[in-house]
C-alpha cells in the first residue's frame, strides 16, 4: 500500500531567490523517488480497470468500473474497512496511553532502570511473524497457552482468543509490538522537559497527578502527534500478524484492507479486483494522512 503524503505548505523553495540554484542538485533524487512511486501507482490504477484474472488468461480487456462495482458490492470490503479502522484506532489508543505511562514510569530513578528500559523496548525488535507465533501458540492458545493456564488456575472460564474475540486478540498483539516505539519517543520527550519547569510547578504546589496533567501531558502533545502519525502509516498495512494467526478469519472477522487485497490477488488470482482494492486503500491512507498532517502541522507551528 502506498501513501502519498500531502506535505504542509512550506515557504516555496524557489531557485531564483537564492544565491545557489538547488534544483539541479535535488532533481536526480526527486526524479528517482517520483518514478519509484509513480510506476507502481500507475500500474495499480491501470490493472484496476482491466479484466485480469490469472485463472482465466483468455478473459482480458478493458473492464470499465466493473472491478470497482464488484468490490463495492462485496460486504467483505466494508467489514475490511471497519476492521482496518478499528485495528488502527485501538492500537493507537492503547500504545499512546501505555507509552505515556511507561515513559513517566521509566523516567523515575529506580534500581535496575537500565535493564527495565531494555525489556520494555525489546518487543520492538521481535519480527512480526515470530511475535505472532509466540502470542498464538504460547500465550493465547486455549489449551497450551499461558493465559488459559492462568484462567484455569483461577477457576475462570478459558478464552479462546482467536475464535471468540479474534480482532481484540490481534489488537493486543500489535499493540504489544508498538508500545515500545511510543514509550521510546515519549520517554525522550519527557527527558527533554525543562527541569526548572517541573521545579517551578512543584513550588506552585503541583503534586504527581497535577504535575502529570498540567505540565507533562501538554508537553507531550507534540510527540504524541508524531507517534500517532508514524504508527498510523504502519498500522494501516498490518499483514503478517493476521496471516500467521487467523488468516483473516473466522469468516472475515480479522480481514483488514491489506489482507483483503492479498486474498483477492493471491488466493483468488483476481489481479484486477485486487488492484481496485489497492486504489481504495491508497485513497483511505491519503484521507487519513491529510487530516493527520494538517493537525500536526498546526501543532508544530502553534
Amino acid at each position, binding site marked *: 500500500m502506498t501513501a502519498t503524503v500531502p506535505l504542509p505548505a512550506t515557504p516555496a523553495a524557489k531557485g531564483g531567490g537564492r544565491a545557489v540554484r538547488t534544483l539541479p542538485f535535488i532533481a536526480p533524487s526527486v526524479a528517482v523517488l517520483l518514478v519509484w512511486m509513480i510506476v507502481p501507482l500507475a500500474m495499480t490504477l491501470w490493472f484496476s480497470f482491466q479484466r485480469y484474472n490469472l485463472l482465466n488468461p483468455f478473459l482480458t480487456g478493458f473492464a470499465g468500473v466493473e472491478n470497482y462495482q464488484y468490490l463495492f458490492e462485496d460486504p467483505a470490503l466494508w467489514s475490511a474497512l471497519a476492521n482496518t479502522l478499528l485495528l488502527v484506532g485501538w492500537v493507537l489508543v492503547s500504545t499512546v496511553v501505555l507509552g505515556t505511562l511507561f515513559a513517566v514510569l521509566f523516567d523515575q530513578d529506580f534500581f535496575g532502570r537500565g535493564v527495565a528500559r531494555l525489556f520494555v523496548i525489546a518487543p520492538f525488535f521481535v519480527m512480526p511473524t515470530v511475535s505472532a507465533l509466540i502470542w498464538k501458540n504460547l500465550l493465547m492458545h486455549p489449551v497450551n497457552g499461558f493465559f488459559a493456564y492462568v484462567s484455569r488456575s483461577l477457576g475462570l472460564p478459558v478464552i479462546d482468543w482467536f475464535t471468540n474475540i479474534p480482532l481484540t486478540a490481534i489488537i493486543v498483539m500489535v499493540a504489544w509490538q508498538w508500545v515500545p516505539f511510543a514509550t521510546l519517543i515519549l520517554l525522550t520527550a519527557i527527558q527533554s522537559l*525543562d527541569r*526548572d*519547569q517541573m*521545579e*517551578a*510547578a*512543584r*513550588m*506552585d*504546589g*503541583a503534586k504527581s497527578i*497535577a504535575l502529570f496533567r*498540567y*505540565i507533562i501531558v*501538554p*508537553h507531550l*502533545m507534540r510527540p504524541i502527534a508524531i507517534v500517532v502519525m508514524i504508527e498510523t502509516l504502519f498500522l494501516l498495512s498490518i499483514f503478517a500478524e493476521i496471516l500467521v494467526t487467523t488468516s483473516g478469519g473466522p469468516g472475515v472477522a480479522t480481514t483488514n484492507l491489506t489482507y483483503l487485497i492479498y486474498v483477492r490477488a493471491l488466493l483468488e488470482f483476481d489481479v484486477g479486483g485486487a488492484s481496485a482494492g489497492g486504489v481504495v486503500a491508497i485513497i483511505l491512507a491519503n484521507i487519513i494522512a491529510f487530516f493527520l498532517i494538517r493537525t500536526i502541522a498546526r501543532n508544530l507551528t502553534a
Partner: protein
Amino acid sequence: MATVQLKSVEKAYAGHKVIHGVDLEIRDREFMVFVGPSGCGKSTLLRMIAGLEEITGGDLLIDGTRANDVSPDRRGLAMVFQSYALYPHMTVADNMGFALKLAKVPEAERNAKVAAAAKILKLEDYLDRKPKALSGGQRQRVAIGRAIVRAPKVFLFDEPLSNLDAALRVQMRIELARLHKELDATMIYVTHDQVEAMTLADRIVVLNAGKIEQVGRPLELYERPRNLFVAGFLGSPKMNFVETAVQSADATGVTVGLPGGHSIKIAAKPARVAKGDRVTLGVRAEHLVVDPAGALVGRADVVEHLGGEVLAYVDIGGSMVVAKLPGHDRIVVGDPVSLAIRDGGAILFDAKGEAMPALGA
C-alpha cells in the same frame, strides 16, 4: 513577619560536600543577596531553602519553625528561576494563576490577584499571550508575577537577570529595588554579579567554595572586607594587591616595603605581625592619587579614558596597580607616574589573607 535562619546547614552530593556548615540569619523584610563566584554553592543554598534540594545536615528555620522536611509548596516561599521556567502552553494569566488554581482559590479571587500583580508589573496588555510571544524582559516579569500572586513570605531569586541584555538588566535591577519597597517582603537573591549585589542588597553574603566569607551591609563589605577574597571579589576595578613584607611594626602602625625601594606606613594594629612577615597591601583604585611625592612610582602601561574617569594601569616594578583618576586627567601611555595612597585607603592582609584591623578600630 518572615525570617529565615540557617543553622550549620550542609549539603553533600553522593558524599561530596559542597556546602560546609552555613550559619545565617535573614531578617524580616530584608533584601539579602548571596554573591560569589560560579560554582560556590549559591544556588544549592537557595534551593535548600526553597525545598528543592534535600538538606544533608543542620537546620532550616522559617519564622522560627524547623522547615527541613516541609514540602516546597508549604514553606510559604516563591522562587524566580534564571530560565524563567514559565509553562509554555499556558497564557500569561494562567502561568501567574497556576498556584492559586492548584490551591483551589475561587476563580474570581484568582483573577483579581492576577490582575493586581499584572498591574504592578505592567503586564496588563499581555495576559492572554503565551510566553513564546513575549520578550525576555516581559518573560522575566511574568516569572516575578507568578511569585507575587502567591503572596509568599519570602521571595527567592536565582540569578534572575543573567539572561537579559545589559541595558535591560539595569532597568530590571531598578524595578526589583522598587518592587522590594512596594511589596515589603523578605527577599533572597542569588547573583554572581557584584554590581547587582552592591546596588540591591540590604545585606550581602559573600560565599566561596561552600563557605560564608563575610556577611554585612554592602558598604561595610566594600570598605572593611574581612579577607583577601572578599576584598578582591567586590569592587570594579578589582582592588589592587601588592605582595610585600613588614619592615617594622609598632603602636603607631605597620611599615611595609614597596617595589622600587620605597616604604609606606599603614595605620594598622601591629598585633599579629612582626618584622619580616609576608603581608599583602590592598588599595582600591579610587584611593590612589597622582602625587609627585607618592611612594608608588612607575610608568603608565595602559590608560583607559572612560569619559567621567580615567583608569591608569601603572607598572610599579613588577606589579601592576590600577588607579582611578579624574576624567580630565590627560595621562598617556608611557608617562612616569607617582601615586600616593589616600589616608585610610589601604588595608593590610596577613599571611593567611585575613585583614588586619585598623588603628582605633
